[in-house]
């Protein structure tokens, strides 16, 4: 009978521990230290916003570049750092791939639609991007619709790359209102 009571008492205490109650004098704790580091993605993007023609009027059917040496100057083959207005720096702790997206340019009146092909048309513009060290002639298309093209692949942690964008203006405009949009760079862990 005593042994049966002892077993019942032990089971009762175990159940109490499982619901988080332990009597102060019921047990002694042991602690261990476990260290773990999570994958952290972050990057910076310098160069500021891009106001074409310095806020003046752009010409139809004309290429513009975010090129510090001249907005009408096509970057060479290969593109050099000096002709890239923007720098992408990986401030995370893992290598990343960076894709580029360029939304339609909107404002009062009709928007300028991204052709998603790098070409232009009436009220349709083309967007391109390229990184330093590669030919502008093979610049990737900055699309509005998924799937987005990869601008940078396997950018190492703490690494950086200069990038430049190209804008092919519409061939014709139906209004003279200013339009604005945004270019979005998205970094994902390089697999």
């Amino acid at each position: 009978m005593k042994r049966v009571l002892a077993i019942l008492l032990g089971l009762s205490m175990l159940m109490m521990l499982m619901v988080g109650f332990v009597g102060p004098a019921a047990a002694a704790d042991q602690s261990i230290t476990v260290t773990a580091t999570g994958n952290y993605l972050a990057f910076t993007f310098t160069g500021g916003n891009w106001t074409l023609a310095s806020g003046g009027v752009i010409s139809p059917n004309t290429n513009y570049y975010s090129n510090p040496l001249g907005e009408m100057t096509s970057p060479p083959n290969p593109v050099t750092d000096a002709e890239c207005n923007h720098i992408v720096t990986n401030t995370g702790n893992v290598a990343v791939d960076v894709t580029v997206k360029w939304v339609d340019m909107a404002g009062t009146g009709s928007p300028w639609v991204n052709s998603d092909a790098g070409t232009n048309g009436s009220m349709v513009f083309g967007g391109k991007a390229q990184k330093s060290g590669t030919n502008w002639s093979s610049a990737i298309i900055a699309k509005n619709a998924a799937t987005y093209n990869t601008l940078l692949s396997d950018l190492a942690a703490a690494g950086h790359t200069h990038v430049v964008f190209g804008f092919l203006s519409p061939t014709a405009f139906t209004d003279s209102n200013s339009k604005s949009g945004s270019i979005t760079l998205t970094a994902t862990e390089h697999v």
Partner: protein
Amino acid sequence: MSMRGIIRACSIVITLLVIGVSLSPPIVMAADQNIAVSATPPSNPTVDSVSPASAKQNDIVGFIIGGSQLAGASSVSFGAGITVLDFTVDTDIQISGNLLVAYDAALGLRDVTVTNPLGSGSKSDAFTVLDGHIAGYDEAVAHNETLNWQTETSTVLVVVGSGTISSALYLQNPVPTAIPAESIKYYDVRCLNATGLTSLTVRLYYSAYDISDLTNPVPYFWNGSSWIACSNYTRHADYVEVYIDGTTTPTLNQLQGTHFGLGGVRPVPTIAELLVQTTIPIIFVAILVVFVIAVGMTQGLLAGAIAGALAILIGIPILSILVDMV
């Protein structure tokens, strides 16, 4: 194991379980960065300058327009009576092209207008049409008849069929390109709508003064870029007759402000003519020299000097007359 030992073991297991849950690492799946892009499209064009500032009736001239926001221009206008034949948008601030001023365009100032998809821009009184019919000008609605305008425009036109025919006379070459011959005279013959015409025979008259010493006059017509010899023509005493129909050069349909020019050939002297031209003066001078020497030897030095002076005074005019005669 005692009951106390069992309890302690269970407590460690539970604690480790709790710690394990709290160690899940923070994972960021993606990070974004944006830059804003903005741009302003062109609005109405502006016209600041036009060159040249004028042209004559019947002229085809090149022009250059300066302004702003000219890119994308869809039309260029110089006003009534002026046809813009072609134009090119060179840059956002310049357009170049060619225009034709109608033979009957009203004289005076014109506004020059450029239109792009967003609107139009003009410069008032930027271009002037000048009188291009310097000497004479005639126009008539003709039907199977002969238009005798020899007095006014030095032309006679034999019209077969029906059409509105006009003719003018220029005092000089109306285009900057020289005719491929010694020029004699310039005319204008026009029939803007040749639908009812079967043929047109144009007699281009000239005077002895016009042709001077030129021979073999050839009629040319201006095709807009160069002088082309007419294909069907005959020469007469004081005119050249040019026959024009749908198959000739020019054709009736090319009589759209067409300039005609007569060119001649300056004759090359024959060997006999060259000998006569050179021999007679030499013989004349030789006679004078012999005369002076003979007088000097027979009558003395003073008489010889006087004879020489007389030979120069009288001989030079006579020699000039002889040269002109031969």
